[in-house]
């Protein structure tokens, strides 16, 4: 049972370890500077001096609390970029990357259905993103321990969970494109354009009137609007990310079931 999941995770163990340690270290390094942000007003002044358009990209100045700092500094750009990039790379690698190497064709020559291959590979993607988010979570608490600050356990779980949901939905874009096209270059290029395009639209929308309506069509909106480190999980927004993921995987599955395998 789950032979593909076990083998795929085993093959990616060092890569996963590296991503997890990288995410942990990045969160830790960003969060340990929190005390200097709270004590120094010059950053608030700097933020206020920025043009409105730039402020949208950098985030708000709501970083006087740990939750606010996590929402606006740690999880506004840094963590999403790392986990989303990782999710896209893994999503492509498991699908069109495998097809490009010819290993998908070899796998399908065994007694295993296409639906099972897709399901087990998607479970592998979810577990991989989860492992990296364990690194993120440990990063939060090791940094808080380093600077001797306390924080809500529920909110730290909430922000890690919403970041996990964002990464799964962005990884699903790459995964579905890889499954439905089988072309590594095309699927990775398209996934990168879609996901990072979504990020830019969502970041610029507060400052650019013409993008206001478009914001709700981006995956990042349903992550940033939650401000989960301050407010906890908004289940309706998380449900949107889950539904988008389910729709993407369904489309990928529907196409993958009957299409020709490339190599």
């Amino acid at each position, binding site marked *: 049972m789950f032979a593909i999941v076990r083998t795929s995770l*085993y093959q990616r163990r060092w890569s996963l370890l590296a991503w997890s340690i990288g995410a942990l270290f990045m969160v830790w390094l960003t969060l340990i500077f929190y005390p200097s942000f709270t004590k120094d007003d010059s950053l608030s002044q700097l933020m206020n001096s920025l043009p409105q358009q730039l402020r949208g990209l950098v985030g708000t100045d709501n970083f006087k609390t740990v939750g606010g700092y996590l929402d606006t500094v740690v999880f506004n750009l840094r963590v999403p970029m790392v986990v989303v990039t990782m999710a896209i790379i893994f999503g492509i690698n498991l699908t069109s990357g495998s097809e490009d190497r010819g290993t998908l064709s070899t796998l399908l020559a065994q*007694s295993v259905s296409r639906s099972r291959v897709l399901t087990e590979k998607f479970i592998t993607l979810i577990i991989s993103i989860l492992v990296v988010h364990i690194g993120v979570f440990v990063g939060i608490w090791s940094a808080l321990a380093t600077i001797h600050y306390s924080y809500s356990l529920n909110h730290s779980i909430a922000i890690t969970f919403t970041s996990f949901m964002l990464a799964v939905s962005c990884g699903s874009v790459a995964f579905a494109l890889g499954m439905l096209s089988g072309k590594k270059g095309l699927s990775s290029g398209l996934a990168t354009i879609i996901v990072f395009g979504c990020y830019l639209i969502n970041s610029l929308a507060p400052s650019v009137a013409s993008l206001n309506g478009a914001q709700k069509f981006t995956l990042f909106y349903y992550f940033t609007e939650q401000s989960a480190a301050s407010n906890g999980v908004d289940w309706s927004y998380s449900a949107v990310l889950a539904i988008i993921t389910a729709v993407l995987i369904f489309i990928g599955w529907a196409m993958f079931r009957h299409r020709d395998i490339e190599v």
Partner: protein
Amino acid sequence: MLKAMKQPVIQLHDVTKRFGSHIAVHKLNLTIQKGEVVGFLGPNGAGKTTTIRMIMGQIGPHDGNVTIFGQDAAEHAAQIHKKVGYVGGDMALEDSLTGMQYLQFVARLHGGVNKRTITELAHRFDCDLHKKIRTLSRGNRQKIALISAVMHNPDLLVLDEPSSGFDPLIQAEFNKLILQYKQDGKTVFISSHILSEVEHLCDRLVFIREGKVVKISSLEELERHALKRLKVVFDDARDVEHFRAIPGVEHIASDGARVVCRFGGSLQELLRKTAMLSVADITIEEADLEELFMQYYRRQD
């Protein structure tokens, strides 16, 4: 026994496969019965791999249908593959695993295979299973692919140019394995572009060129139709012209009373007619199958 021989294992009915405007396989009809060992021969680009990929359900035909054990090859691939072993020409294996890890992975996909079976096959094919696959030579990777194809004791072996990279000793062991399958009444479909590689293993040979079957023949039938090489020495050089008129004599080259030619007619007729001539010596060499094979490659319909 007769009933068993009439069970079709592989059936391709009017199968056409296109890649863009290129027709890779055109209205291909082929039936392989249970217990047959069939060679699938053709030059590079003839449509062999495309046909085999349709048999394995990796690609679907645009027209016609492909059934294996009576089931649609693509629709029921997982179920069919429980009884099928497949080796491709240069199969992509999971490079970061060792041979044993890879074989255990494939074994789990098949619902489990005794580890002893794996080690016995590795011993038989002189295969080191403890090295990472990425460090192995092409021949050794092919051995692992072959073990993965046979370790679950399938009823049908589909082999697409399987022995590329094998040294002569392993090639001999591979031939023994195929003959063992044949004795056990199992079915083997083996593609190659080299006739000598498969001719002594197969009950039937299927020649394909430009996506179409150009000839289906048993080895005996092929040998009967293959051009034999004749060397004849006459006492009287004038008999060369009479010899030239015998039906089936082709590509004649003469040097006085000495003649070298190809012969593709009835041997009985040849002997009867040459008996009336002043033959001093005659040598009939074995049928040149490779030459016939090349004719199928080259011939335009």
